[in-house]
């Protein structure tokens, strides 16, 4: 067998990691250093590997002159609301699939999961006329509702597999104690399911936050634009390409997700592995 502790193995693994790591982290590295370079340095033919004269002017410009704060707020509202909606829907749907036996349970679950198999762009083709007929085009509510397609199926499945592991005896004990079904769910099951709930919330928040396509298509007015299209249209349009500004703004736009993950990663890991290892 292949000896994982041998020197050759260590070298091979090290090189492989470096190779993968390069593709993962080089763009991030480039993002950070470009955002710190002055314009003169940024547009040199031969790029410098690190900023010679670091400057925060792009950050200052993005905050003071652009509409970044507005886009960020819009994104926070739409992503937050859709993540909340997805989490609540997935909680009840997942629990129902996991702990109740009724006709059509499995087909419904499969049907729901199958939504995940279509490209999101394809789904948009049918969502657009739906939103149009509901007069929800160019509204935040319309965007929030359509964001459900990103994360609801997987979120439901994640919570379903977690709830399936909640011991039936625990639920029986609460029933014997006199609790109603909803009461059991709210006072017993949800409190012991915080890690997967946080995971699902973060997961769906991230999907909506990173969205470009839906927001670009469904939102027309600049005042309702979310961060993705906002950045694209501000910094990299037909007339100008302000790379330094784009880099600084992108960095700030990804900050909320990074910070959320840093604080909640403990839950996230617990939540993801809960299904695999008891």
């Amino acid at each position, binding site marked *: 067998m292949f000896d994982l502790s041998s020197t050759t193995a260590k070298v091979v693994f090290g090189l492989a990691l470096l190779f993968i790591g390069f593709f993962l982290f080089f763009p991030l590295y480039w993002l950070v250093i470009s955002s710190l370079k002055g314009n003169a340095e940024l547009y040199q033919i031969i790029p410098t590997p690190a900023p010679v004269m670091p400057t925060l002017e792009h950050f200052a410009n993005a905050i003071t002159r652009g509409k970044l704060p507005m886009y960020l707020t819009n994104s926070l509202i739409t992503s937050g609301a859709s993540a909340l909606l997805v989490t609540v829907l997935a909680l009840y749907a997942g629990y129902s699939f996991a702990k109740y036996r009724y006709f059509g349970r499995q087909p419904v679950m499969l049907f729901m999961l199958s939504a995940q198999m279509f490209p999101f762009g394809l789904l948009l083709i049918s969502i657009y006329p739906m939103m149009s007929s509901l007069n929800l085009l160019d509204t935040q509510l319309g965007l929030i509702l359509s964001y459900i397609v990103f994360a609801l199926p997987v979120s439901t499945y994640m919570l379903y597999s977690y709830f399936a592991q909640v*011991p039936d*005896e*625990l639920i*029986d*004990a*609460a*029933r*014997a*104690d*006199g*609790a109603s079904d909803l*009461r059991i769910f709210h006072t*017993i099951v949800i*409190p*012991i399911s915080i890690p997967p709930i946080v995971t699902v919330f973060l997961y769906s928040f991230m999907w909506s936050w990173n969205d470009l396509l839906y927001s670009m298509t469904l939102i027309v007015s600049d005042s309702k634009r979310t961060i993705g299209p906002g950045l694209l249209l501000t910094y990299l349009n037909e007339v100008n390409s302000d790379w330094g500004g784009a880099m600084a703004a992108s960095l700030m736009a990804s900050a909320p997700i990074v910070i959320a993950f840093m604080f909640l990663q403990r839950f996230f890991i617990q939540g993801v592995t809960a299904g695999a290892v008891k």
Partner: protein
Amino acid sequence: MAKLELSGIRKSFGATEVLKGIDLTVEHGEFVAFVGPSGCGKSTLLRLICGLDEITAGQMAIDGELVNDVPPAKRGIAMVFQSYALYPHMSVGDNMGYALRLAGTPREEIRARVEKAAKVLRIDSYLDRKPRQLSGGQRQRVAIGRAIVREPRIFLFDEPLSNLDASLRVEMRIEIARMKDRLGTTMVYVTHDQIEAMTLADKIVVLNAGRVEQVGSPLALYNTPQNRFVAGFIGSPRMNFMRLGAPGQGGRYAVAGGSVLVPQGLAATPAEIGVRPEHLELVPLDRPHALEGVVTMTEHLGSDTYAYVTLEGSEDMLVVRLSGENAVRRNARTGVAFDPEMAHVFGADGRTLASARPVALEAA
């Protein structure tokens, strides 16, 4: 305190019938144990009594009131689960008070009742802890405490001691016995451990394949089992069964290692006799009226010695229980004898044809 009456109880899951008509009365203040092999339906029956599953057919009454459609909490029943089923996010005190809180009992009264029960079970210093901070035995006490606090009319126990190690199990068994004396509440106890059933119960119900095989006091089941199943199930090590050969003259039947005289005039043709290990003894070979065999294996437990004897012309082994330390030589030829009063005769359908009636041993 309550009287529980079950009549014609049936339970099916889809096409599978798990309980096939159970008739049973549990008297006021009685401690009844359900025993039987896995899958016999004993836990299902307990769940029906608790109200966790719906009864397919039949009637259940508590103190004369039909409770088939009464939800669990309204039946005045508390159940102790095998896995304890403590709410992991609640403190011990909240776990014990949960049912009372749901019932809208005043906060002060909940606290008083929880504290009282906790004191009795010696868990009063753990009331603020979470279940995961407790040992197995302590969790078991909390689970029992949660039931006591509700002051139910009937207690149900679903194999409550099976998750504990051997020494703790004995300790908790004594605890439950004391609780039974103190509270005097009707209790139904499911177990696969017959020692628990024999020591705790006033009445044992032996279940097999969804039917009641026999109901009776522990000693009645031990002394006069109604059929081969009960005879084999109650008692440890289990009863030895010896197949009877073709009948000879005057009730004489051949068995491996010799022959026996079976009383005549029984209701059916005898097919087997059964003798418990503690009623067999090893005797010198030259003694008349004994079966002949070879000691194949011995087990020394200190207080007892089990000798496994393979009878002449048979593959089966008889277990003989000898009291104390006994130097039995392995592979030695020996005679096996038993007190005829202690033998049981079974028919081909497994029914007991005679118990405690003389079955005389013949010389080999």
